[in-house]
């Protein structure tokens, strides 16, 4: 950083500093750039510049066969490592018309909900760290280890579980391993009250999060926010509730809003904590239901990989897959053509993409000291979100408006689809 980055603009008697945060800054866990206009410590303007984590994953996927794409999808992000495969498998199964056995659907649900538990706990820890409350960070992450251990015991891996495959799942959760899951669920159930006490009844956390980073109900709807970010503003929006899939259809899933905690939704950071902590409780219930009601039966409707590849190669059509990831709705679109092993089009839209614009009303009017916690409040996952990076021919990245982007996208789609 150098002096050029402080633009002293004196106009109308007000002194306005322009301060860049990122792409590398301790408040940010992943690269993204904010340009803040500050009046003293108060934020009066913000510009967001993503694009630092774009790796061309969709392009890579369109040059690989679908089984390889599945592994690629798992590695779009390290925290959402089940969300992307779950959405992708549903998209491909939708396109190719493949049935998934009920037991496999339940196993997918269990792993998906375990991911929600560990992801929300990870977020809570990061949030505490951004507030300068490292004690809470360390204790939360210690608790989180239990879900990571359980995932390792059930799938063999801590991070990339490699569980879903087109037409089913790769590993069973046998009855003799179910007790491990019950043990972990009891562990979390016992700690839940303590966590709510530590986060929601702590004066110093409340002082830093109440009425900070407010996203109003109307803004959340207008900006198409998803996941806990929208629910904290009182928008009852949850893919598991609105369009049930997998085992969720067998359950009564209700979108969690701060009302479930007995408070009116404000849409601030405190409400985000409420929603995420209550969702951990909800996930415990869901996993327990799945374990108790898991149907017997096969794991894959097409167990042989060569047969599966043959079916996929023959498939023709397009499909979508949606999953309520810990951060909100993740959406995969896939287009398959007969005789071509690779997907012709693969689009990934991660929840952070929707929530990006929610940052603007959240930042406005708050202070420099609130930047880290507001940035963290939508639980941004930049590597999930960065699907595009504009670079002009002369090498200068530029800003494109909506109409221009739509035109370019249509051109590209026509080019790809011939």
């Amino acid at each position, binding site marked *: 950083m150098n002096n050029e980055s402080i633009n002293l603009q004196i106009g109308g008697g007000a002194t306005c500093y322009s301060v860049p945060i990122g792409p590398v800054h*301790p408040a940010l866990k992943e690269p993204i750039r904010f340009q803040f206009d500050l009046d003293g410590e108060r934020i009066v303007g913000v510009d967001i510049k993503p694009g630092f984590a774009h790796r061309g994953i969709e392009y890579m996927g369109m040059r690989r066969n679908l089984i390889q794409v599945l592994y690629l999808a798992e590695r779009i992000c390290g925290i959402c490592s089940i969300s992307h495969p779950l959405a992708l498998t549903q998209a491909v199964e939708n396109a190719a018309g493949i049935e998934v056995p009920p037991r496999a659907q339940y196993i997918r649900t269990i792993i998906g909900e375990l991911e929600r538990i560990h992801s929300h706990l990870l977020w809570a820890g990061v949030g505490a760290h951004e507030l300068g*409350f*490292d004690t809470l960070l360390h*204790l939360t992450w210690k608790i989180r280890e239990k879900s990571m251990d359980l995932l390792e015991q059930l799938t063999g891996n801590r991070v990339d579980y490699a569980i879903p495959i087109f037409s089913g799942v790769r590993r069973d959760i046998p009855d003799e391993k179910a007790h491990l899951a019950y043990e972990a669920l009891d562990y979390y159930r016992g700690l839940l009250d303590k966590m709510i006490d530590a986060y929601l009844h702590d004066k110093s956390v409340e002082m830093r999060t109440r009425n900070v980073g407010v996203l109003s109900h109307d803004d959340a709807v207008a900006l198409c926010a998803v996941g806990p970010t929208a629910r904290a503003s009182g928008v009852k929006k949850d893919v598991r509730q609105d369009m049930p899939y997998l085992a969720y259809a067998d359950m009564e899933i209700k979108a969690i809003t701060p009302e479930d905690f007995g408070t009116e939704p404000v849409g601030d950071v405190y409400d985000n904590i409420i929603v995420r902590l209550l969702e951990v409780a909800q996930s415990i219930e869901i996993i327990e239901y799945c374990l108790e009601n898991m149907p017997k039966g096969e794991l894959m409707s097409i167990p042989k990989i060569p047969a599966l590849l043959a079916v996929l190669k023959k498939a023709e059509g397009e499909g979508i897959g949606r999953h309520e990831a810990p951060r909100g709705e993740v959406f995969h679109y896939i287009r398959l053509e007969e005789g071509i092993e690779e997907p012709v089009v693969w689009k990934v839209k991660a929840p952070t993409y929707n929530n990006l614009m929610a940052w603007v009303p959240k930042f406005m009017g708050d202070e420099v*000291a609130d930047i880290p916690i507001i940035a963290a409040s939508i639980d941004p996952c930049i590597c999930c979100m960065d699907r595009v990076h504009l670079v002009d021919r002369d090498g200068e990245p530029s800003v494109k408006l909506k109409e221009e982007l739509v035109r370019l996208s249509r051109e590209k789609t026509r080019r790809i689809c011939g």
Partner: protein
Amino acid sequence: MSATLVSSIWQGVIILFGGTFLGMVYKGFDRKLAAQMQGRIGPPLRQPFYDVIKLMIKENVVPDHAIGWLYNLMPIAALVAAATLLFYIPLGGFAPLLGGYGDLILILYLLAVPSLAMMVGGFAAGSPYATVGAQREMVMMMAYEFPLAVTLVSLAWRASYLLPGQPVFSLSVLAAHPLWGAVGPLGVIGLVLLFVALLIVTPAELTKIPFDIPEAETEIAGGLLAEYSGRNLAMFYLADAVKMVVMASLIIALFFPYGLAAVFGLTGGWGSLLDVAFYLVKVFVVIFAAVITVRVGFARLKIDQVTRLFWLPVTGASLVGLLLLALDRIV
């Protein structure tokens, strides 16, 4: 004459190195205990020594936009001011070396110097993060200096009626005549309020959570210290360690100057040894109560919240303490 001078110099050297060493040891305890309370293993107790040695041999970077001489001078100013404080504070039950040459008011000023030096250094660094940190430090000093001054002055003022004709602003006089026994019940309540105010000021004076706003790692990347490295950073680190001992010793001298030697009827070498050991325990207890547990148990506050906290409740507490001490004299 020259013999006393030589002995004074030796004492000075011992105090200087002993005080710094103690500060580092307490820093080690601070880190280890905080880690244990957070469910971590934590570094070994001698980690602060490793840190300083490593900083000393690392490159001392001066940013292009910094005002070089000011930027390099400030760590020295901070360390010198902190070290000078050691000569005016009773350590281990002994009277301060330069006790006759400076009193509470001087201590008050010297305490502000390391913070001021960090502030000037931050402004001189030419980085936006350091500038924001320096502004925050400035606001925070304005917030906590007033209750600190009120506390110290009220104690001396009350003592002036109990010890007529004595230099009541001298710390050794105050330490020799603790007020607890000399005032009535109202006065005791007042003293408790002043004590609490001083305890709350301590982490702010030392820039520890919840008052580490000028450094705020997650917000402004270390703020004041963002650009400092190598030898300069090591000097700020040492100044911080010394200041921790000084603040704890100040609280002990004002409120708990008692020794154990008299209780056990020990005199001479063994008595001094016992008193020094007891003093070390007292410093630890104060640091544990005012710094370690506080920094483990709270989130970082915002600058407006800190200002409100110090100007309203803490200043209020110290003023009520002063009032109660005054009432106690009348009643």
